[in-house]
């Protein structure tokens, strides 16, 4: 365990006040998944497909993938075929730019776009069991693959917006995401180790939730934690931040379904 991890974070107010001494962006070579900061037991839970509670959602997603639905009576499989081939690499590229909406959409939104436009089925609610299961199933097909987000002329403005949000102080605690996740990762906050905040394992089985949850749910937890108004599910700010964080994690391997404390 590094010395950095052993050091205790004395009080959050000190972090909030000592903004001047920030270290800045994490160098590419020093990026580490939250997986590496977890205890041996929690890592074992993620590694074993027969013991990972997130796999229950993946199983369910597989069943939903094959189920005919909507006015068209079509299943995801009818267009996309076997997800193991058809969905391989997809989650690694999301959030992705949607030419019709002229903005990036995340995986949950893409699934709902398919449902409403192609299957003539109602959109699934955010954090609903079905949407989580389908998202987990699709993302699982990219497990082990490197996150593949590149900025281009279309996505750059949204990426910049997400980046600005990451570095902006907000909330009653007047904290920026970067202050914990760039400057103090590896140190402790109320008994937990602060991760670098790479969304490599979403949807993730969070032990605190005792259930699977989306990246947006986790982000809302963070915002509540710094006493900032959490963005609504599906808000453009959420997707922009997700885009930035996935770009920041480019090259790191997808771990879905991840397990995190």
């Amino acid at each position, binding site marked *: 365990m590094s010395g950095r991890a052993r050091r205790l974070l004395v009080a959050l107010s000190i972090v909030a006040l000592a903004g001047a001494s920030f270290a800045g962006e994490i160098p590419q070579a020093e990026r580490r998944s939250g997986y590496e900061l977890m205890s041996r037991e929690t890592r074992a839970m993620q590694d074993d497909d027969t013991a990972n*509670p997130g796999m229950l959602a993946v199983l369910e997603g597989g069943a939903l993938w094959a189920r005919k639905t909507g006015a068209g009576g079509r299943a995801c499989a009818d267009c996309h075929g076997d997800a193991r081939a058809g969905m391989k690499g997809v989650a690694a590229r999301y959030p992705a730019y949607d030419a019709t909406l002229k903005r990036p959409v995340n995986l949950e939104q893409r699934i709902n776009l398919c449902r409403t436009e192609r299957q003539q089925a109602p959109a699934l609610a955010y954090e609903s069991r079905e949407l989580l299961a389908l998202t987990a199933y699709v993302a699982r097909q990219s497990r082990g693959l490197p996150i593949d987000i590149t900025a281009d002329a279309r996505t750059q403005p949204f990426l910049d917006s997400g980046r600005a949000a990451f570095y902006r102080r907000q909330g009653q605690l007047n904290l920026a995401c970067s202050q914990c996740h760039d400057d103090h990762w590896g140190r402790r906050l109320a008994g937990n180790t602060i991760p670098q905040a790479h969304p490599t394992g979403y949807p993730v089985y969070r032990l605190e939730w005792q259930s699977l949850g989306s990246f947006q749910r986790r982000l809302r937890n963070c915002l509540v934690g710094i006493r900032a108004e959490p963005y609504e599910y599906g808000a453009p700010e959420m997707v922009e931040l997700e885009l930035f964080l996935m770009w920041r994690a480019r090259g790191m391997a997808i771990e879905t379904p991840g397990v995190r404390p």
Partner: protein
Amino acid sequence: MANALINVPDRARRGEIVEIKTLISHPMETGYRRSQLGARIPRDIIRLLVCTYNGTEVFRAELHPAITANPFFVFSTVATESGTLTFQWTGDNGFSVTETAAITVD
């Protein structure tokens, strides 16, 4: 709609001790939590997991609210003969799920 993940080896030698893993989705609501308005959220848990091997009970777990959501158990049984392992979970509010797994014993 609960779903379950069972891990049993497909085949084993007679007399071999085989490891069985079970994972089932269930919130295991303890009955001790309160909503934001202060009302107690009623208990809703799985109370029992029974595993039978060709009809004979070989393992039983009696659960209380301290078992984590999505209950997970690893236990073992001696591979005596080919046949079916049956897993039945029962609990509050009429919860009842049965799953089976086949095993071939040489």
